């Protein structure tokens, strides 16, 4: 695991989105980054300011896109499930999916596209295996509603939720190298580094993975 470098960014710059800070720390300065599902452009702005990256974004919501473009960010209105196919191989150094993967129709395909378009991929997602979500199902028998998953089952855009262990399993199937992994607890603190996967899966509320294509 790499140590945090001098250019480390902090939560105050991201409106409390700790996963964005972790992602920014994984991106080398001066690189080309595609942020898939970039929302209102928070991460792109952060990466531009702290890492001097050449950043691009795709966002499905018109409001998000128009907001980003008005801020001077290079963002297009598009659907990750369809439009990633149009990007050439190796167009970017990093492709980022921050809290996006679980909202795609074809997560596996999106991951494959991600590592075709970029040599490296960074994925952050809410861990459905966290003890709070587990206990809501176990004790109340209801679909979980938490800080990270605030919508009711019938309203949520998150149609493909997974646990940290599910994701690790998929990464193995895809034959992709897992370069770094970070789990964040309820307070945005990193879960102990050397803890076993089951521990991460229980106490990590969010996870961030840095993946690299093999070969």
């Amino acid at each position: 695991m790499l140590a945090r470098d001098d250019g480390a960014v902090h939560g105050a710059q991201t409106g409390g989105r700790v996963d964005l800070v972790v992602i920014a720390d994984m991106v080398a300065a001066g690189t080309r980054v595609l942020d898939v599902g970039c929302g209102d452009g928070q991460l792109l702005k952060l990466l531009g300011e702290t890492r001097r990256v050449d950043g691009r974004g795709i966002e499905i919501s018109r409001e998000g896109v128009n907001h980003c473009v008005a801020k001077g960010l290079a963002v297009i209105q598009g659907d990750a499930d369809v439009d990633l196919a149009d990007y050439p191989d190796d167009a970017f150094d990093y492709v980022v999916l921050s809290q996006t993967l679980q909202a795609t129709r074809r997560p596996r395909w999106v991951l494959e596209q991600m590592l075709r378009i970029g040599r490296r991929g960074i994925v952050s997602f809410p861990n459905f295996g966290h003890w709070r979500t587990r206990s809501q199902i176990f004790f109340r028998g209801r679909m979980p509603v938490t800080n990270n998953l605030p919508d009711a089952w019938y309203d949520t855009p998150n149609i493909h939720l997974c646990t940290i262990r599910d994701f690790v399993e998929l990464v193995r199937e895809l034959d992709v190298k897992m370069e770094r992994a970070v789990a964040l607890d309820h307070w945005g603190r990193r879960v102990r580094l050397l803890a076993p996967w089951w521990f991460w899966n229980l106490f990590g509320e969010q996870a961030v993975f840095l993946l690299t294509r093999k070969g």
Partner: protein
Amino acid sequence: MSVIRLEGAAAKSRAEAIRREADEPGSSLVRFGADKPLKLDAGVELSPFQVAYMTYGELNAQRTNAILVCHALSGDQYVFGEHPATGNNGWWETMVGPGLPIDTNRFFVICPNVIGSCMGTTGPASKNPATGEPYGLSFPVVTIRDMVRAQAMLLDHLGIESVLCVTGGSMGAMQALQWASSYPGRVFSALPLAGAARHSAQNIAFHEVGRQAVMADPDWRAGRYLVEGTSPRRGLAVARMAAHITYLSDAALHRKFGRELQDRATRTFSFDADFQVESYLRHQGSIFVERFDANSYLYITRAMDYFDLVAEHGGVLANAFKGAKTRFCVVSFTSDWLFPTSDARAIVHALNAGGASVSFAEIVTDKGHDAFLLEEPELFAITRGFLEAAARDRGLPPVKG
């Protein structure tokens, strides 16, 4: 009676002023002599020729703050302020001016009249120096690329190596895309609005209806109406009426006019303009023929029909922008059925495939194709943001205050 006669005289003098614009425009003008012919796609050279243009704002010492504004089919070089011949407002008063999104306090805006038009740049209404008569149909068929070539010669003349941005809507967007493709090194950014990389079959079809209307008018005289002292007013008006419908949307027409009757309580059981929408279209047709040359209408619609950046690059649009350093912002409007969002997406896909920096926004509006000319706050915010980022990255000083 005398009032009517005076109005008639005023209209006549205005018509003469507009007619004079074709050779002696009220704007800036550059004449290119025999040593600098315009090489046309048709395989012939146009020489001598002239380009009429307007500039607004000041060019900075580094010559890095120029923005080239390209006008649409029936536009001209008068972007804002009073038109010297028609007395109308400029065509992009909402967008360009001091403090507006394309801020003339900050940027040096250049707008040339296109080749083939009739407001001072050489076109079919211009006098052919070889004959002393207007060119008429002896004027060669021109293309969007020819328009852009002439603009490049204008920039050379002005000593501007590269522009901060090329922008325009509709045919202006075609020019912006052609610029980025033909002269990538001269275009720092491009902002094509409501445009396409190729004219669709439906759009060619609409243009053909317009041209046939002009040519079916007996006063067109096989294109020699200027020499013969007639004017194909009815044909050109019908062409404009048909085209005008395509610039709006069903929703906008319904909102503006619905089925309301014009100055009458009931239907007249005649072919008068009973409905407001009929009256409106007739008005649009009649004011257009006052200010536009019928042959120019034929030539410019033809240029748009021929526009096809895809075919120009072996069927692969991405090749038009391969390795482009230019940054793009493509904008479409939800109710634009003339240049629908799918056309904009085709451009965006090609730019992505070519690895270019591209933004793409679709703006929700019921105003149709003409939305780019109208009050659209989201368009203004996007234009400001895009230009601001381009200006910053080109090293222009930030806006004061």
